[in-house]
């Protein structure tokens, strides 16, 4: 009798303990979570997500450290906040196959911009292709060297006024076409206007006006929003290169010792001061190229797979607003 009670107890305890081990293990194995952690400790895990065209892609996220955010580049969607230890969900649908880039939308740390991953949407009948812009970028067709210095030969004594410039260029024979605007730096445009007979300050006003005719209030507003969300952490809210991570980036670059001596020392550097006159030596195509491609090791991320073409041009237009009065 006693032995029977012992045997029954053993059986019950064994069942109970096996159950308590099996329960979390099975629950854990059956639930797919995408873990977000700061880039220094791994970034997204997994960082490659696969889905099928025509089928909703349901994603569940959790953060392992600080607040992160999730958004897919070039997709019109509300970013999803991912709180530490909590689970956030989103369902996405894709209308064409390809490789999409997802990224963190919160300033989670110095290497926040490295928090990227890809979503591969396949069509049963086709192989995945790059989902972002496949056209040849303008800087390539113009043969621009993105890494070469672009000093401005001239710069205004005070902020040029686009409004005053508009009055000047109305009726004048000035090329305001977007192709000219995109391929010519403001300093270059200033030089082109040397035959106009206008004073230097008037020529700068005209340059500002050409800029304004190639953008819009809405475009500048979007550029401002994109800059505040994605660029200000490093370049500073006012574009002066003093963002919250600026010092850390510079220190990390100095400490890394990974500089590649040459025409450009490609290590993480202090973010560029966009309010300096050099910016006026860069054409919109050059700036768009830098945004599109990134800084190649300097710490400047590539945004080509994140922003649409329109967003890139709006952002470029906004960068010039540090130098012009509308």
């Amino acid at each position, binding site marked *: 009798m006693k032995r029977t009670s*012992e045997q029954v107890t053993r059986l019950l305890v064994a069942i109970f*303990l096996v159950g308590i081990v099996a329960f*979390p293990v099975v629950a854990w194995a059956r639930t797919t979570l995408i873990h977000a952690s700061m880039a220094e400790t791994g970034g997204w895990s997994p960082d490659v997500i696969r889905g099928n065209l025509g089928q909703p892609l349901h994603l569940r996220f*959790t953060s392992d450290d600080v607040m992160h955010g999730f958004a897919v580049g070039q997709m019109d969607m509300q970013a999803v906040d991912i709180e530490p*230890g909590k689970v956030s969900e989103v369902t996405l649908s894709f209308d064409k196959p390809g490789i999409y880039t997802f990224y963190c939308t919160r300033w989670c740390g110095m290497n926040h911009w490295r928090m990227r991953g890809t979503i591969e949407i396949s069509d049963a009948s086709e192989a995945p292709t790059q989902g972002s812009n496949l056209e040849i970028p303008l800087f390539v067709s113009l043969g621009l060297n993105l890494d070469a210095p672009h000093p401005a030969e001239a710069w205004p004594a005070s902020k040029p006024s686009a409004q005053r410039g508009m009055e000047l260029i109305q009726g004048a024979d000035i090329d305001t076409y977007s192709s000219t605007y995109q391929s010519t730096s403001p300093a270059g445009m200033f030089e082109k206007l040397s035959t106009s007979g206008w004073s230097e300050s008037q020529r700068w006003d005209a340059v500002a006006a050409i800029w304004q005719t190639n953008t819009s209030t809405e475009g500048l507003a979007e550029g401002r929003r994109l800059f505040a969300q994605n660029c200000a952490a490093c370049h500073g809210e006012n574009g002066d290169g003093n963002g919250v991570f600026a010092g850390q980036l510079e220190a990390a670059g100095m400490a890394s010792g990974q500089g590649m001596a040459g025409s450009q020392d490609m290590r993480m550097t202090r973010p560029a001061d966009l309010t300096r006159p050099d910016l006026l030596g860069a054409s919109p195509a050059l700036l768009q190229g830098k945004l599109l491609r990134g800084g190649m090791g300097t710490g400047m991320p590539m945004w080509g797979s994140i922003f649409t073409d329109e967003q890139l041009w709006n952002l470029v237009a906004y960068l010039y607003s540090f130098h012009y009065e509308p």
Partner: protein
Amino acid sequence: MRKLELTRSPFIKKALKSRIPQLIVLVVMLTGFIFAILAGSTGSRVGSQNFGIVFVWIAWWAVLILVAVPFFGRGWCGVCPIPVVGDWLQRGAILDPAARKPKWLKLRVPGRLRNMWIQNLSFTLVALFSSVILTIPLVTSVVLAAMLFLAIGLSMIFERRAFCRYLCPVGGFIGLYSQTSPLELRIKEKKVCARCEGKPCYNGSDLGSGCPWDVFPGGLSKNTYCGLCLECIRTCPHDNIAVNLRPFSEDLASPSGKLDEAFKAFIMLAAAMIYAFVLMGSNGAVKLAAFSIFSPEWFLYAASFLTVMFILLPGTFWLAVQAGNYKLPVTGKRFASASTALIPLGLMFWVAFSLSFVMTNATYIAAVLSDPLGLGWNLFGTAAITWQPLFTAWVLPAQTLVLVGGLFWSARTAWKTSQQVNINPIPVIGLCLLVTVLMLGLLL
């Protein structure tokens, strides 16, 4: 009547003699413990959202230090899940008594190690790395699993509960502070034990195992090493073992005079103050140093930690004892006996520290209960509960009351002890006052 024998109640006696109620509690505890290990390794990597961290270091700690130790002494040890599996394997049974022929090595722990020194070391190590253990779920998981497997391994090698008695980092201080608790297990009649043949309470019989804690109940005069496993109640053929309610801190009336126990008191008192400074304070640099294991800053932190624990506090106490009677040399026994005064003070320091620690973090318990594995569940509708400290208006007055009460309790103990060791208690009481003021400053 100074004591109330609880086992006079037929209901309580039956409940304690039967193995079933204790077994049910043990299995539930073991389940929770194993779940905490698994949750620590598979659940949320955020400490405040992980079942392992929240249930072990917040919920269990609150129950242990605020309720179990002050009121039930070693009551926790009676239902602790860590040695259970080793116990079952050692006995070769869950309900039945141990097999006559030992299944394992059943070695005796060497005499030199039969004291609290290893427990002092194990607690110090855990305390030194606590900033990491208490916050990183995987580390908590590994530490808990290591304790479980160590307990099992030692059960295979040594007789009885070597892990609980000599290694468990928690068991040491529970034993020390259990001397203050109003619950005790004692024999009823000494002469019955003297005449008892075979001493089944220590050696075991068909009714149950010999004392797993290596204590002969007939000689039991303190709670320190009685794990309240209740085996002796089951094996005593003369119904001579009782569980009593008694006044608080009765065991402190006769100091043990052992240095290992004295150092346990110093370690615990110092650790409570260091924790209050590091974990509750607003000093970010110290927190970072404590967390940055093996960095130069951490070594500085560790050196300061150990200096306070093993040199500064014991050294100051030695001076206080010497000042209490400068004509007598401070022998180890006098020093250790006088340190009894620090036992109630240390316990109250831990209660005060734990009040703010637990009340600050208690809301995490509700959130984790609904989503224990961090998979996005909401079992009880509390997963989204936002963090907020509880009873903020009451915590500070309660802490002050506890610390001041602890000071008076210690002063009273020092007064009584001083007569036995022939010293003036004023310097020791003065030192107790000094550290209490310091602790008040750290917590308030």
